[in-house]
Each structure stands twice: as C-alpha cells, then as structure tokens.
C-alpha cells in the first residue's frame, strides 16, 4: 500500500537555527498538509497546500514557517529560526481529490530544539 514518508525521523537543532523537514506524499495525491503535535498534546493543523500554493494556514504558521514543493515528489516545511517551543512531532499528510478523500499521515519527524 502506498504511504507518506518523512525524513529525518528525529532532528535535533539549536535555537535560532533553520531546519527543513521533508515529506514525500503519496504519488497521485494533490493536496498536502502539515500538522504538529507538542508532546502530550493533541495534533494541530499548520498549513494546507494545493496547486503550488498555500490554501489555508493556522495562526501557528507565522512568518518563521514556509512550505515548498521543490519538485514533483517532495514537500518541505522550513522553520527559519527555531525556538524552544517549536519542539514537537511534525506530521505531513496527503490526500486524493474527491468527496471520499482520506487524509494519509506520514510517520512524523520529531524536532527537538535545544
């Protein structure tokens, strides 16, 4: 069964550094998402992306965050200058268009900011 993949599985970075989290969505999917989950809390929506542009973003997704689909397969989330509170699990998701479009989640990248 096709699946969403994410790299790296765990990233440790120092405060103020830039990080790029990478995702490979399911190949025929057209809609892409990033969510995050701070340890012990619920999963929160960050941003949705379609047709090479952001469709919707949450209040969390401020100017420090950006997303890009640099080629036909990858979908990236960049955090420009990481803060301690950015430490979380980041999930990428993708779905097919249509009324029964199940959203499939990747395994997540655990980001630790020290």
């Amino acid at each position: 069964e096709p699946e969403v993949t994410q790299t790296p599985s765990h990233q440790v970075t120092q405060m103020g550094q830039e990080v790029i989290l990478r995702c490979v969505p399911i190949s025929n999917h057209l809609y892409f998402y990033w969510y995050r989950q701070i340890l012990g809390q619920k999963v929160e929506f960050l941003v949705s992306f379609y047709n090479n542009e952001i469709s919707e973003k949450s209040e969390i997704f401020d100017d420090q965050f950006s997303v890009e689909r640099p080629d036909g397969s990858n979908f990236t989330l960049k955090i420009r200058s990481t803060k301690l509170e950015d430490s979380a699990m980041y999930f990428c998701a993708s779905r097919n268009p249509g009324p029964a479009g199940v959203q499939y989640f990747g395994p997540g990248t655990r980001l630790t900011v020290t």
Partner: protein
Amino acid sequence: GIQVEQSPPDLILQEGANSTLRCNFSDSVNNLQWFHQNPWGQLINLFYIPSGTKQNGRLSATTVATERYSLLYISSSQTTDSGVYFCAVDNSGTYKYIFGTGTRLKVLA
C-alpha cells in the same frame, strides 16, 4: 471554531475485552477520520466516516452526523491496540482537520 471532545480520556482493559470510544463535536462536519497513534507516535488511519457505519476486522465505527457524535468500537482487544485514539473533524470542507484530545487506551495481557 468547532469543539471536539473525546471520552473517556483514559481506558484500561484486560485483553479480550470490548470497548466504545466516543467523539462529540459541536457543529456539523464535512469529513471525519479516526486515527490510532501507536507507541512510536505514528498516526494510523482507521476509518474515514463522516456518516454511517463501517467495519474493519475487530474495529467498527459509527457516525451519527445529525446528533454530532461518532463512536469507535474495539472488540476482543489485544495488547497491540494500546495507544491513543484520535478523532479528527473538518467542518469547512477543506480537510483542515481539528483533532480531539484523544482517548489513551492501555490493554493488559
């Protein structure tokens, strides 16, 4: 915005027992999914169920959209069922999911 509440927050079962997890939401929804977050943190899709009933092996789910709740049934539970169960809803039609706070399930051998 829409509120999503799950109950119970915690559940401990003996292997072989059955359970019902509930998800209440405060507004009508366009999309709803149930997920299992395993001990490694992965979110596994269980059901896409904005309405009606579905079954997959020992798991089944029912959403009564008009009454704004969804139920996840786990029968003959196994230790591998342990983890956190989330429901996620979208009421905008854009698949921006709002997750509930989850039910943490522990199944004892």
